[in-house]
């Protein structure tokens, strides 16, 4: 091998050759990275997945104290028609005792309607509590069976590993009994 290489005395030649080798290697690496981009980029959500339909939900069939689950962006959205007691419970909480400090007011457009994405902010399970017979957790809202997060009647995290309150999706009231999510 050594026979084909420059002699050790040829210091300038060696340096030049080393530089060229590093340059060529670097160009090769950059080229490979650029070539990998379209492949990795193809894994991002496709256009049909991104074309999110907004959905309209009729609220007139949800009696007070009941809930409805609708599908939006492939995720469940919880709509709860809260009772005056539940609203009172949500509003009277001492803000300092909360993990993710938010007032009930910031989380609703009309106090009797609570709209949240029904995905636990811990690792993405759907919390229980939409049905009357479900476990509602220690705070009368939702309970995530996966890792034991308890949410209150405002969908705020009160106990357990979840770091954030249930997300409130963008929505607007079209009329008194109709909302548009998204």
């Amino acid at each position, binding site marked *: 091998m050594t026979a084909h290489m420059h002699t050790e005395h040829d210091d300038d030649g060696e340096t030049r050759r080393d530089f060229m080798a590093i340059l060529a290697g670097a160009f090769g690496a950059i080229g490979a990275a650029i070539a990998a981009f379209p492949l990795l980029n193809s894994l991002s959500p496709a256009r049909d*997945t991104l074309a999110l339909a907004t959905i309209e939900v009729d609220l007139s069939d949800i009696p007070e104290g009941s809930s409805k689950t609708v599908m939006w962006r492939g995720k469940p959205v919880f709509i709860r028609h809260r009772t005056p007691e539940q609203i009172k419970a949500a509003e009277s909480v001492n803000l300092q005792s909360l993990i993710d400090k938010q007032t009930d007011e910031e989380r609703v457009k009309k106090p009797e309607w609570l709209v949240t994405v029904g995905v636990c902010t811990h*690792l*993405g399970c*759907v919390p229980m509590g939409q049905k009357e017979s479900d476990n509602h957790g220690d705070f009368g809202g939702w309970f995530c*069976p*996966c890792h*034991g997060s308890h949410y209150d009647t405002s969908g705020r995290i009160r106990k357990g590993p979840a770091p954030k309150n249930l997300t409130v999706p963008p929505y607007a009231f079209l009329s008194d009994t109709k909302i548009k999510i998204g």
Partner: protein
Amino acid sequence: MASGNREPFNNTVVEWIDSRMPIFTLLNKEYGVFPVPRNFNYFWNFGAIAGFMLVVMIATGLFLAMHYSADTGLAFNSVERIMRDVNGGWLIRYIHMNGASFFFIAVYIHIFRGMYYGSYKKPRELLWILGALIFLLMMATAFLGYVLPWGQMSLWGATVITGFFTAIPFIGEDIQVWLLGGFAVSNPTLTRFFALHFLLPFVIFAVVFLHIWALHICGSNNPLGIEPKTRQDTLPFHPYYTIKDSFGLLVFVLVYCVFIFYMPDALGHPDNYIQANPMVTPPHIVPEWYFLPFYAILRAITFNMNLYFLLGLVMLLLLLVDFVWRKKPVYLSAAGGLALLVVGGLLVLTGFTGDSCQRIDAQWLEANVGFKNMCGTLQALPGMSAEAAPISAKLGGVLAMFGSVAMLFVLPWLDTHPVRSARYRPLYRVFFLLLVVVFLILGYVGSQPADASVAGVPLILVGLLGTGYYFAYFLVILPLLGRFEKAKPLPESIHDVVLAKQINAETKI
């Protein structure tokens, strides 16, 4: 591999090939006359068994793939079709399904063997790391494969595991969307999981090849943990170990067949025979049994790691690094080390207690005024609130889980004791077997609901203590033992011990 000094073969066809490409010479060298320590016990069968399981999984997986449809609308029914209509499809699927469990059984015993007899120590560090890499790849492959039948556990298991990535600050949510190809586990997720589940076994195969290559450079460890010195210490691989491996494999396959034919769903979850439904989470999500200890570690971290806790942790880690790797001259004086230990320990305790105060029951606090005052003081400290903690409980859990696997990769540098085998390390033996027990207890904790308790003890606490011991074993106990444990005297040679045993047995007769 050099073809220069090759012994010619008598068979003309073999000779014709071998003189052009010396593959038979290579096989004879590596699997025929290859010298192997003569004192192996049956723990040394599990490498070959694991290799056999990899081949079984690739073979059955290939044929399952020919009948499977990777589409959320079709996947569940295509698996049911394999079970009901495809000729012998039930058998192929049950072999594959239980094969995953038995592959993990073989590999867990293989890892146990390596740790008990110190097989990870010099010069086998790279061999060990390649093995840990195979274990990691197996975990990924098993997880991807479990999603394919598109049952309830498939969907929700995938949701929880990909949810780990949302714990990464700032970019976590985007990474999760990129991995899933959508906003929830859905069709694009299933198709890419299928492609990767097909690919990864071949990557594993390649790493297994490197693992065996590295093994054949330094040779096998053995129950005594001393290197063979003369020819009397070894036996040729064939026929001695080909036959011993075959026997062990037969026994293993017998047990495997009991599961395949008599209790094929014993290791699975009934929920996975319900088609995936993104609107309903099963009341109790559990991963497959081989992930349970790691799942328990994930769930054990329910506290936020605030600045006090992390600063203390860094100080303790500095102490560890200094302790494990310091050569003379000593970097840290004894007083300096003690100061680091005390201050670091106090900071960790302050941070942990201060954060835990936020979750203590208010009524209990009213009844224990001393605690209430202490919590009040601690929480008044700057940076003690949950929001100010750089590592949330969620991220902490994910880091602990990945960290527990990472321990395997750095194990050769944490255990600095020169003696390999636990037979000659009485203290190591106790602490390691305790680790195995703790690992099994963690497995039980992982299998139970998050808020369960046994005999009034909340399992979340058991999980935290178990996690504590797991990390203490690697980061505290091993470095300390490496320095202070006095080993029993090692035997002169393998052949001495084998011979003594033989004479002993003969005089008894």
